[in-house]
């Protein structure tokens, strides 16, 4: 899980072109979409693509997306939960 969190941070930085960010600057518990990283709706869609591309996981709709994309941790949990099943 810890490895996954670190990996996700790097992937998020790459996918969202957060060029001036370093993985250690992202707090895995903090909300991704309120202030923090200054992400917007397009970034959310891009993260949904990331989950599909790198982990083969589909997010069905925006509502589910909101929960899954709450924080780096919630993304990692979503991945772990669905990979096992």
């Amino acid at each position, binding site marked *: 899980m810890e490895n996954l969190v670190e990996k996700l941070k790097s992937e998020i930085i790459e996918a969202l072109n957060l060029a001036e960010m370093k993985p250690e600057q992202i707090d895995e518990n903090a909300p991704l979409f309120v202030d923090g990283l200054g992400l*917007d*709706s*397009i970034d959310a*869609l891009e993260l*949904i*693509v990331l989950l599909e591309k790198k982990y083969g996981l589909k997010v069905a*709709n*925006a509502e589910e997306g909101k929960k899954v994309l709450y924080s780096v941790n919630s993304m990692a949990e979503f991945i772990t939960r669905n990979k096992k099943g």
Partner: protein
Amino acid sequence: MPEKVFITGVGIISSIGKGIDETIDSLKNSRSGIGVITLLETAYKNELPAAEVKATHEDLMEIAGIKDKRPYSRTALLGIIAARQALRHAFIDDIAAYRTGLISATTVGGMDKSEVFYRPFIENKRHGRLRDIITHDCGDSTETIADYTGIRDYVSTVSTACSSSANALLLGARLIKNGLLQRVLVGGVDALTLFTINGFNSLMILDKNPCRPFDEERNGLNLGEGAGFLMLEAESIAEKEKKSVLCEISGYGNACDAFHQTASSPEGDGAYLSMKKALDTARLEPSMIDYINAHGTGTKNNDLSEGKAIERLFGNTPPPCSSTKAYTGHTLGAAGAVEAVFCVLAIQNGIIYPNLRFQKQMSELSFSPVVALQNRKPLKHIMSNSFGFGGNNTSLIFSAI
């Protein structure tokens, strides 16, 4: 005294009709053009409805009366068909008689042909016919229409996303008003393409069912295709030629929402500004507008933002309002012109179009759209909204003579 700008002819082809008569018949009888995709080869065929013009390349060539072997894109053909109708409708046979311009708008250009080319090409660099991509540039469909119509004095292509062709009207009207052109054929065209279907799908704003603009349960838009063209003439020319005038373009305004690349601001700042500017140019009070043909795409974001802006400008009981995208889908770069033609036909026929499939009032808004066809004579002033990605917002006002 600046010249008034008159509309003397219109042409249209969309999923609800290949000309004025079919179009008005569909509008009156609540016949929507949104349905299963049968012509475009896409993996989303059975998943995403769209509003196709049910005509193949050959059909369109025949309707346009074209026999030569140039590679015509679907975009160019749809454009030619609507442009030709507008010229005929305005009884223009000698293009050279007055200083005449062509302003055409598009977002995809000849993308449909490029897609035909690209698939075999990426598998083998020797495959694919190069002549299929010479139509790719957005300017190509305009040039083709210019060649076909013989318009040479002034030719330009506008590309501002979904407000493109509304901006073509705005630009044309200004050029006449300022005496730079005497007549100008304005409009826009976009064909349905894999490019846009896949792109909009990645934005998760395509409804898997026919769209429901301004409905609480609305769930996105459907893409459409088509073309609309309108012949604008200076008042002095129309009088000299004793033209029968359909209506006047009396107001126009454009503003930037300056909020987000694709999303509209929550309070519809850009929409409010563009509608207000249009009223100011037409010197009208909000209460004098008889009907608003809304942008109304059916996405959560647009309809809320536009609705809020309408309330801000018109108060809690705005004029009758509807989105005709429930008929035609969102024809992107063509939408402004297609809906401008609808507005001209509304004034001509004294009718207000229903907002199809509307059921449930939006909780955030005080008003709901028109649900059944209304006969209302006279319809004096109609406002039409077209808002594009990039926050490019345009409002137009059409007035009866």
